[in-house]
């Protein structure tokens, strides 16, 4: 693959859920092109940002359907790819970090088992090799006693450690694209920055791209290169992260305005105004 080629092309993505009350559109006509960069997707809950991420992996809930004009990852047509082909991509080339390690780690499998599994699904290596690789990976996510943690159970880990283990699991097959769905929302504020710094470091070392899904506009602005602002299943504005403060769309400006500030005057935060005209 040439360095210039886009890694991911999303054109006209739609995600619809069949509910007893009829179909509900969660993502309506989302398009973007991703290179080897860090893209943030920001929006309130229900804006369709998480479903966009899951659609890229082909992992919608049972009642979900997706359609697009084009959905291509590194010249692989994701719309035409069979389940086997998609599974090979999953984890191997596109991976995802979920919100809370308390729920996203299997409680009855040891940490080591879960890293080894992630590696061996994609690489034909012996158990011993996979174990060494897993230990190295634990070290890479700054876990000080990898041997100890390898044999630990998920409930014995703290939140920050758990998320670092999660990063180890999802990065061990060396994917080209990592989707991080609110990766730090369940963590203490103090460990949040550590985990983000670690993520940044791992991505840079491997030259992987990132889609960072969050509701926190400022966090995404400081961490990513580009930001997509979603509202009600649509992209309402795309910005370079350093231009965030000069956002033009009233929704983005509304999101920025309702962030509390340490040096603020303590008055009530403004409520978001929503205009049905945005959806046209």
């Amino acid at each position, binding site marked *: 693959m040439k360095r210039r080629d886009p890694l991911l092309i999303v054109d006209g993505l739609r995600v619809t859920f069949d509910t007893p009350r009829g179909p509900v559109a969660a993502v309506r006509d989302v398009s973007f092109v991703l290179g080897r960069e860090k893209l943030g997707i920001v929006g309130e809950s229900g804006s369709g940002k998480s479903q966009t991420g899951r659609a890229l992996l082909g992992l919608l809930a049972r009642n979900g359907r997706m359609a697009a004009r084009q959905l291509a990852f590194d010249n692989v047509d994701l719309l035409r790819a069979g389940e086997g082909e998609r599974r090979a991509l999953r984890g191997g080339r596109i991976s995802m970090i979920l*919100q809370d390690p308390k*729920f996203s780690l299997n409680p009855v*499998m040891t940490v080591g088992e879960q890293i080894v*599994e992630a590696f061996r699904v994609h690489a034909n290596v012996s158990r011993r090799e996979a174990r060494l690789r897993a230990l190295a990976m634990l070290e890479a996510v700054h876990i000080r006693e990898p041997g*100890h943690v390898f044999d630990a*159970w998920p*409930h014995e880990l703290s939140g920050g*450690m758990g998320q670092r283990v999660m990063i180890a699991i999802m990065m061990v097959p060396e994917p080209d694209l990592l989707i991080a769905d609110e990766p730090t929302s369940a963590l203490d504020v103090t460990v949040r920055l550590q985990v983000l710094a670690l993520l940044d470091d791992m991505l840079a070392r491997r030259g992987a791209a990132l889609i960072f899904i969050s509701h926190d506009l400022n966090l995404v602005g400081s961490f990513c290169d580009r930001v997509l602002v979603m509202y009600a299943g649509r992209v309402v504005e795309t910005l370079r992260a350093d231009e965030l403060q000069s956002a033009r769309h009233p929704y983005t400006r509304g999101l920025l305005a309702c962030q509390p500030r340490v040096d603020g005057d303590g008055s009530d935060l403004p409520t978001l105004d929503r205009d049905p005209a945005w959806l046209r």
Partner: protein
Amino acid sequence: MPEGRTGSQLDRNRSSLLVQAPRQIAGTALSLALTFAGLTAVTFVIARVMPADPVLAIVGDRAHQDVYDAVYRELGLDQPIFVQYLRYLGQLFEGDLGVSIMTAQPVLVDLLRFFPATLELATVATLLGVLGGVPLGVLAAVRQGRWLDHLIRVIGLFGYSVPVFWLGMLALFVLYAKLGWVAGPGRIDIFFDGMVEPVTGLILVDSALAREWEIFRNALGHLVLPAGILGIHSLAYLARMTRHFMLEQLGQEYILAARVKGVPERAVIWRHAFRNVLVQLITIVGLTYASLLEGSVLTETVFAWPGIGQYITSSLFNNDMSAVLGGTIVVGVCFVGINMGSDLLYRLVDPRAR
């Protein structure tokens, strides 16, 4: 930094596991002793306060008052009830459960004959229920909302709600009387009765040990129907519970994480979801097995199966309190034993419970 602390924290968890093990065993033994004391005390008191007169049951209505008094004293009924209870406990520890009025044999001898019949039936029925119900439940959950799921749910509803005695009679009529595919009521043909040395009391095991395959086949032919019918019942229940547990686990985040990793669907179901379901199933299977060991009077009656349910019931009707007490104690010990067993297994499977 949190890591520096966590290493030693893990150490502490490990070592506390070592310290805890003997303490847990001691605790379990103590609760076992208390349960046993409670069990015997309650059944003993109930047996004694019943308006049935154990002396009359032995000497008959027309016995002379002197005979009556002599037997009354001989049974120790002139003593206060707690003395009687302690005496009963003492005898119990010597293996003396009293003599059954109905069979004129020591209760222990009776129990050694009746309990294995129930044990054999309950074990085979539970095996059928687990081997059939658990995979069906998993299958139904994986195919949620499709026709296979509906079919399994209908089978489950049928198996769970159809009366055992009706299904038993029907099965006997069709499969035994009309088609002759299976053997009829009882544990074994009279011809073979008593031909193998009772080692365990389980005819299947004993005949297999003696390499008497004809007897083994005959006993199996007798066992198939009652075990099958009890098995369908537990199969239905276990399928329902497994489906429910499985759906619950399949909706968890760690399942999504496993799929993100690219784990094949079969491994997602069995390695990830089912291992968590197993934790919940252990308790349910234990309870099902224990309730079958209590003896199922209806099935035993329909199939003339000489099991403990029938033994306790008929002893009760005959005011044969030593037999009732002995039977109840056996059932109680089974319950406690199985609970302990599933507790241990549970800890083995679920690291959070250690």
